């Protein structure tokens, strides 16, 4: 039973991170129907920025929570800036192009950013300091849930609530929902579509960076390639829940996290990544619209 609980919490932790990244995919897809391939790279850049900032701060005498907060803030700011720039360079000129063009452009951007970090930093794995606070009251349950895991789950939950409020009740959220429904109509009613798209990228990137900081603290090491796998898995989560749907992304992330956790725990740990891909292929075959998605109909 304890083993089951451990796997359950492990899956929940993983799933929360997948959900954070998946939200970026799903929001961008909802608005411009593009799979933002470079999203995983944004997450990786967030983690790298946090590592650099945290190291510099630690060396100049800061410690404790201030390092965590500053590193997270820098990671979020920089990841958002990167997300914004990527959209302006690689996707905006291609709004009217055939569907395949922005997708190829996105793959190019993803390869570019990976190698940019590889050349600018290093190809080795860097140890990532655990910045998250340790809770003493969890000590009796250490076998099941650690402080890092609790922190990740709690942060994700708070962020989800904030995001829901933002989408449901603010002007910006309203504009985003309107653009997702019908871009031309939103434009006619006076929504600045370009700004909405930029905002979506910024928001998605910020969430990805947060996910990056959290997961890097959890696993303890990063390199330039972490974005690829995380990106694919988060995309799987987004598709699983129904791409374009925000609660779907969260549901998909959690389901994927549990699938991986239980499959590696009870079946075999060699094939950890294969399970995620298999799940993706199976979902797309049997329910391409995802669990909470709507089936689009073709129009002539």
């Amino acid at each position: 039973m304890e083993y089951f609980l451990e796997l359950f919490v492990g899956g929940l932790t993983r799933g929360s991170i997948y959900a954070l990244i998946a939200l970026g995919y799903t929001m961008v897809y909802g608005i411009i129907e593009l799979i933002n391939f470079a999203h995983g790279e944004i997450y990786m850049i967030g983690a790298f920025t946090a590592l650099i900032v945290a190291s510099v701060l630690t060396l100049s005498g800061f410690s404790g929570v201030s390092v965590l907060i500053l590193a997270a803030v820098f990671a979020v700011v920089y990841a958002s800036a990167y997300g914004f720039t990527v959209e302006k360079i690689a996707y905006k000129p291609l709004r009217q192009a055939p569907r395949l063009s922005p997708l190829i452009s996105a793959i190019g951007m993803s390869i570019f950013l990976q190698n940019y970090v590889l050349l600018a930093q290093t190809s080795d794995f860097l140890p990532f300091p655990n910045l998250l606070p340790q809770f003493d009251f969890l000590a009796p349950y250490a076998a099941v849930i650690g402080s890092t895991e609790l922190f990740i789950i709690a942060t994700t939950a708070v962020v989800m609530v904030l995001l829901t409020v933002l989408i449901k009740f603010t002007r910006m959220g309203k504009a985003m929902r309107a653009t997702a429904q019908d871009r031309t109509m939103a434009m006619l009613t006076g929504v600045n579509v370009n700004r909405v798209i930029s905002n979506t990228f910024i928001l998605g990137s910020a969430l990805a960076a947060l996910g990056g900081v959290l997961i890097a603290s959890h696993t303890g090491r990063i390199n330039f390639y972490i974005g690829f796998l995380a990106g694919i898995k988060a995309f799987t989560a987004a598709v699983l829940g129904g791409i374009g749907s925000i609660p779907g992304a969260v549901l998909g992330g959690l389901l994927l996290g549990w699938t991986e956790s239980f499959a590696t725990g009870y079946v075999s740990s060699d094939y950890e990544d294969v399970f995620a891909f298999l799940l993706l292929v199976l979902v797309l075959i049997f329910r391409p619209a995802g669990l909470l998605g709507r089936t689009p109909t073709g129009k002539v």
Partner: protein
Amino acid sequence: MLKKAALTSLWFLFLTFPLLAIRVNTIEHLVEWRWKNMIYVGIGSFVLSLLWQYLLARQASARGPGEGGGSPMRSLYRRILDDRRVRYPLLAACGVFALAFPFLFPSYQTSILTTALLYIVLGLGLNIVVGLAGLLNLGYIAFAAVGAYAYALLNVHFGLGFWAALPIGALLAALFGILLGFPVLRLRGDYLAIVTLGFGEIIRLVLENWNDFSFGPSGISNIPRPGLLGVELNLQQATSYTYYLMIALCLLTILVVNRLQDSRIGRAWIALREDELACEAMGVDKTMAKLTAFALGATWAGMAGVVLAAKTTFINPASFTFLESAMILSIVVLGGMGSIPGVILGALLLMLLPEYLRVFQDYRMLLFGATMVLMMVFRPQGMVPAIRRSYQYRRDEP
């Protein structure tokens, strides 16, 4: 325009600051400041921004009045190429050069060119799927892995030779192509891309982890080179022989793809690419068209895989990563989707340039990525755009 470029430059200085200027050594707790990089970024992004704006403005003005049409430069070059008096001698010269190559240059050069030829075949194969049928396949290298492992494993277990393995590898890859094709029939462009990517990764991960079957990450070595009727070849002769083999395979591929393009099924693919719904309404069997595209594309990859295994005499799962698929895709994109000369040019450029310009070796993948983005933004049709066969209507001639 200058002001905008200056602002862009400032923005990029801000953007690249933590990653380019600072490098932390987490083991010795040192921070290295690299201010020189910032100067490069500042100047570089300023110039690039000016260029970017200029190109975008030019593109907008070209699109503005009427159809725009081709620039006079391009039509001149087309005219020269279409002229029989130039075209055939040029082709003949290329042919003679290609045939004489192993005698003129050391075997190292021949080996590089063989690799480039291999990528031409892979590019042309992917061109069937992506360029003609418009199905974005991001796991293409997996089919080459199927071919390569088919040859390697058949050789290890049953002692099968290269020539016996070639058709088996091709058939097996085609089978995998259909296997992948069936589940993704209903999917639209971008979903399809992700599933093919997942498929490619599954194949690689299985090869990496199923030790009893595929010998795991250490791979299979001592795969025999292609045989020539039992004649013993030394290393140099074997290299030349593989090279000629590759030329033959390349010519065969070009011939087949060229014939396919104008065939019934080729037209069905192009129609499918342009508009799936309209294509179905015109009575094209969508299932058939998609499956044949996947199967035929995979066949070439399978053959290329067998040759790859025979050429390098060693394979492991690490040679079949997503980056390889992305590289083949950028060959097709750079050259021009659906255009045979484009793909050939793209493969030669992308494979040979980094080989001879060693300076760029480190920046190779970076430039690949940048090229893919820039090509999509400024020249989505590629370096040598595909020409659609068209017929002119003349009144006085029947």
